[in-house]
């Protein structure tokens, strides 16, 4: 690692930073190798004719996604979005203003797809698609975490994330892919999860967890794998098996199922909830990855599908699984129909683990000892994809209310962070959208600035010492960046980690 990475100073007032043109022009993730690209159906490199392939792909997307064309046409450069992006706030690089990020594509769109841009390019800010322009795309579309905060403030509702996703899809089609996301997508197909955790290793890890929980609680809490006929298939990010603090939430889910007497299972075939197809805007990848879950559900004969703590996975599950894979209403192929007949219609499908736990708490089915969390003063970080692209429960805003109600049911001391940094205005952790990779650590540290400011306020003011979240990316990102801001890495954890601490299991005497 070259220069020492430092966190920017916290701001006293949340004003926009001084502009620092070019500040992040050197920040770019590693490029996927030809082997990684080809393994998931993309050209291996930017070979001759890449411009044509890129423009053809752009034309295809403009024809297919009306939204993309509207977003590229509709912007009036009002500036409402400029100071809403955490990466702009943390870096000051003007190309991290959402409007500027959109303009990277808008200029090419105008040159190649609009009459004015074809005839009078300079008058309308139109640019040819050159290698320099493409390199700029690679740099700055890899500085957008697709968190969609800017779109909340755009009077036209322009969704920069969709433009970023289109940018990534076009680059992939031309042969320029990002290593972190694309290597991982290859692993999902080859091994079944983002980590590359093979079945036997998963089984060994789960057996170890059973021992640990037995030692801790005395109860025989099971972590079943590939158990046919279980009621619930739990699909969770593979980080839950591997990393800290993620694993503490996995233990929490298992304790909840145990306490409620619900039979459940994990699947070695679909041992990953995450779907990085979303991050690279690839419908084909989204669909292929989602289909594994349907295959596992049919194979295991489960009645319910539940998703663990993973932000973008819940967006895909809640908003897209129905048409992608026939989980929930919408699929009309024979497999989707078979799945609909198999699943229990009394439950929403799919369901978030927080909905499951929340329902059980409401019904009084769990014994909870709030005092067990008294060493913690808890706050909640809304994860972008859950907050702005999904819902929970049956009322608007359930995705905000349900996790908070769980926390209040399992902990006595809860504090909200400042308005404007939570709920649908939440700030991204700084590591979403396929940017959670070591070579982008400078960007990740800087992008965490607005969240760290809000956390500092409640840490100093109200003694908050635990930030709960329901996303594997948020957990990994904060674990890494918290120390740069003078916080302990163990300060972040899952909502079900808190549940795990408080839940009392019926232990036979």
């Amino acid at each position: 690692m070259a220069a020492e990475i430092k966190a920017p100073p916290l701001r006293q007032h949340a004003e926009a930073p001084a502009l620092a043109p070019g500040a992040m022009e050197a920040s770019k993730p590693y490029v996927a190798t030809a082997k990684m690209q080809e393994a998931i159906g993309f050209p291996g490199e930017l070979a001759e004719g890449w411009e044509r392939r890129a423009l053809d792909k752009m034309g295809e997307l403009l024809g297919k996604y009306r939204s993309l064309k509207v977003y590229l046409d509709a912007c009036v450069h009002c500036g409402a979005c400029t100071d809403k992006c955490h990466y702009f706030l943390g870096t000051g690089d003007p190309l991290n203003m959402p409007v500027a990020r959109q303009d990277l594509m808008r200029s090419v769109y105008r040159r190649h797809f609009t009459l004015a841009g074809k005839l009078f390019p300079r008058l309308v800010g139109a640019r040819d698609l050159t290698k320099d322009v493409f390199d700029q795309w690679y740099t700055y579309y890899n500085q957008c975490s697709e968190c969609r905060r800017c779109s909340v403030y755009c009077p036209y509702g322009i969704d920069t994330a969709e433009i970023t996703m289109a940018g990534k899809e076009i680059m992939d089609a031309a042969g320029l892919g990002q290593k972190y996301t694309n290597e991982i997508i290859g692993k999902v197909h080859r091994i079944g999860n983002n980590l590359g955790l093979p079945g036997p290793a998963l089984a060994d890890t789960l057996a170890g967890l059973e021992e640990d929980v037995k030692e801790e609680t005395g109860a025989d809490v099971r972590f079943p794998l590939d158990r046919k006929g279980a009621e619930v298939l739990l699909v969770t990010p593979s980080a839950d098996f591997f990393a800290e603090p993620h694993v503490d939430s996995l233990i929490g889910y298992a304790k909840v199922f145990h306490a409620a007497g619900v039979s459940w299972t994990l699947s070695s075939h679909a041992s990953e909830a995450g779907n990085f197809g979303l991050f690279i805007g690839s419908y084909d990848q989204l669909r292929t990855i989602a289909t594994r879950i349907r295959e596992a559900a049919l194979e295991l004969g489960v009645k319910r599908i539940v998703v663990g703590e993973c932000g973008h996975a819940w967006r895909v599950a809640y908003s897209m699984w129905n048409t992608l894979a026939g989980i929930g209403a919408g699929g009309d192929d024979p497999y989707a129909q078979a799945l609909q007949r198999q699943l229990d219609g009394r439950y929403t499908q799919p369901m978030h683990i927080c909905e499951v736990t929340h329902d059980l708490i409401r019904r009084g089915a769990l014994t909870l000892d709030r005092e067990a969390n008294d060493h913690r003063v808890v706050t909640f970080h809304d994860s972008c994809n859950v907050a702005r692209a999904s819902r929970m429960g049956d009322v608007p805003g359930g995705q905000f209310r349900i996790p908070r109600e769980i926390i209040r049911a399992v902990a006595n001391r809860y504090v909200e962070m400042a308005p404007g940094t939570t709920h649908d205005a939440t700030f991204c952790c700084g590591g979403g959208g396929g940017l959670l990779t070591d070579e982008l650590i400078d960007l990740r540290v800087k992008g965490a600035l607005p969240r760290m400011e809000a956390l500092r306020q409640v840490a100093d003011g109200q003694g908050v010492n635990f930030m709960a979240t329901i996303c594997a990316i948020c957990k990994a990102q904060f674990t890494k960046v918290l120390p740069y801001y003078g916080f302990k890495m163990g300060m972040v954890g899952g909502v079900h980690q808190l549940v795990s601490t408080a839940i009392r299991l019926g232990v036979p005497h």
Partner: protein
Amino acid sequence: MPTIDVNGKPYETDEEGYLVNLADWNEDVANFIAKAENVEMSENHWEVVNFLRKYYDEYQIAPAVRVLTKAIGKQLGADKGNSQYLYELFPYGPAKQACKIAGLPKPTGCV
């Protein structure tokens, strides 16, 4: 592909310095990578590295952090069976930094 030069012999690595070929690994290479990471290898570091390699050999993946802490706790004493101790040995994180020194591929995903 970049290489590192150990005792006059080049070894292929990826952009971040992870060995490309598992079989290339030996103790000199491990010491070389550790030095570049500012990690001074002690006996306890070797315990971790050797466990990682043994586990990888069996399962084709590095062990989960909990599996690792438990195993180290058994070998080095219960007070060392926690991630805090592993972070003391490998400040950039036991999963990534220790894997690099052990010549294993980097764990990917949301970790």
